[in-house]
């Protein structure tokens, strides 16, 4: 079972730039947590702080309850897959995967056995790939080697920094699925950094959403979606109509969040508006309709059969129970 990871009030300062501003986070042993956020939100910095590649200016880092803040990366028992993979170009596949074992002075026959095991885990045929040079491999194969190299040391905590950002979408989806299976099979604690919310929900039991060096909200995907803490969460984690509450008569301060799938056109709605359709887009299993009303553009996801076209003046609305109000 994987070890827990905890950060307490961690700050990282680069000169005058504050990359992390007092972040606290608890990841349970064996959990899969995704660090999500736009670029520059500090998610990679946070991951590197856990790995020990960055020493925090303030705060503590605990792995399995042990304070590791001052420990160098090689003594933390974590493993990591890097965004640019960082395979060793001077070594073949076998030696790349074997690297961590060699450092640990594992006997030769044990190394051979474990490397084969790790390559099989990531579905690379050892007999075909062991002696290949890493630059002869395709992008997806390189990802697998990087994953095998990180897994072969049987880490308690596996860190992944946007590992699949350089491969095609379908290969990415397959790799994500396999990673999920490996996670449940091997039981390590998984912390995964991405800026892509679709990737995040694939892999994460919980999602930690970051912005500008701060932790904004941590929770299950459905919590972030249904109960966003603020406008930023509502906008970043899914599509949303965000309207000042004053415009809807819901009070002076704050914003109303209405998900586009809750907006109906001409049907049963407890709150109704009139507007003109300005755009209709076909999106496979629904239509995305944009309606202008009182200077606002509302997005609605409706049935493919809904009879709307650009220029129509329509009545639309939603059930007031579907409105979620955030303060900022």
């Amino acid at each position: 079972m994987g070890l827990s990871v905890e950060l307490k009030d961690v700050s990282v300062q680069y000169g005058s730039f504050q990359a992390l501003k007092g972040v606290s986070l608890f990841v349970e042993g064996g959990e899969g947590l995704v660090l999500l956020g736009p670029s520059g939100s500090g998610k990679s910095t946070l991951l590197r702080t856990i790995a020990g590649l960055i020493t925090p200016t303030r705060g503590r880092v605990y792995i399995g309850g042990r304070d590791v803040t001052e420990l160098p990366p090689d003594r933390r028992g974590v493993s990591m897959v890097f965004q640019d993979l960082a395979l060793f170009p001077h070594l073949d596949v076998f030696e790349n995967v074997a690297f961590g074992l060699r450092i640990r002075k594992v006997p030769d026959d044990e190394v051979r056995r474990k490397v084969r095991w790790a390559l099989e885990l990531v579905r690379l045929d050892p007999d075909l790939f062991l002696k290949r040079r890493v630059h002869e491999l395709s992008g997806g194969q390189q990802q697998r080697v990087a994953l095998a190299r990180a897994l072969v040391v049987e880490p308690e905590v596996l860190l992944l920094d946007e590992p699949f950002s350089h491969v095609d979408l379908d290969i990415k989806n397959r790799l994500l699925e396999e990673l999920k299976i490996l996670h449940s099979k091997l039981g390590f604690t998984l912390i995964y950094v991405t800026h892509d919310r679709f990737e995040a929900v694939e892999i994460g039991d919980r999602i930690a959403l970051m912005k500008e060096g701060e932790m904004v909200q941590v929770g299950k995907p459905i919590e972030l979606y249904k109960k966003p803490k603020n406008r930023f969460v509502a906008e970043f984690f899914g599509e949303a109509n965000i309207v000042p509450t004053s415009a809807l008569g819901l009070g002076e301060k704050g914003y109303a969040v209405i998900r586009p799938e809750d907006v109906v056109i001409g049907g049963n709605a407890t709150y109704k508006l009139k507007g003109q359709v300005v755009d209709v887009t076909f999106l496979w299993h629904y239509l995305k309709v944009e309606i202008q009303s009182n200077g606002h553009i509302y997005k609605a996801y409706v049935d493919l059969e809904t009879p709307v076209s650009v220029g129509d003046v329509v009545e639309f609305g939603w059930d007031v129970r579907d409105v979620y109000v955030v303060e900022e």
Partner: protein
Amino acid sequence: MIKKVALVAFAAVVLLFYVPFLALGYYMSGGGVLKLPSMSMLATTFMLALVTAAIAIALAYPAAYYLAKRGNELEFALLIAPLWVGTLLKAYSLLVVFSVVERITGIVLWGTALGVVVGMVYEYFPYAVLTLYAAIEKLSETPTQAARVLGASRAQAFLRVELPLTMPGVVAAFILIFLFAVGEVIMPAVLGAWKVYTVGSYIWDLYFKARDFLSGSVLSMLLAALSLLATYVVVKTIRSFSI
């Protein structure tokens, strides 16, 4: 118009630089008694060049590593600037320093192989820094970080990842310096006081003392061919290096 001027200039390079080598060919075909350098002279030359290259690289590697990782422009400029100082001036400066050292410590450097090595290392050190710097600077940080996360200590990460990855740079620097050093004339002459006798000195004497164009031509051509070959190897290694 400019194209024509450039072509004329290029023709001038070929004419002034490469065509004179035909004169060597002419003298070689003329025949005569070929006086080849003695084995001991060859041995001295190669040993000097080997030792010079090895010491220069060993001294330069840590400095180049520092420059590539943390160095500032001033430090870089200061280490490279001696490239622009002429060899003879450097040799002469060292000669003066040697005489002071000899007076104070009693260690004789002038006229010894050690003195010549000091001079040649002094001269070629900036080339080692430049070449190694280029190799180390290209190195991405992440393979080292990956090694650290996989359990390697700082020293292990350096020995198993960074050093092997910069090896082509070391090879390039070695070939470059070895080559320059094999043809060296000034340092052995000034600091070795003609007592440390190298192929360069020999070619020099063949021309100035013996007026033996045949032997001088043969040796020069060999030296030139060796250098072109080595340059080709260097260029190849550096290219294959950028994966």
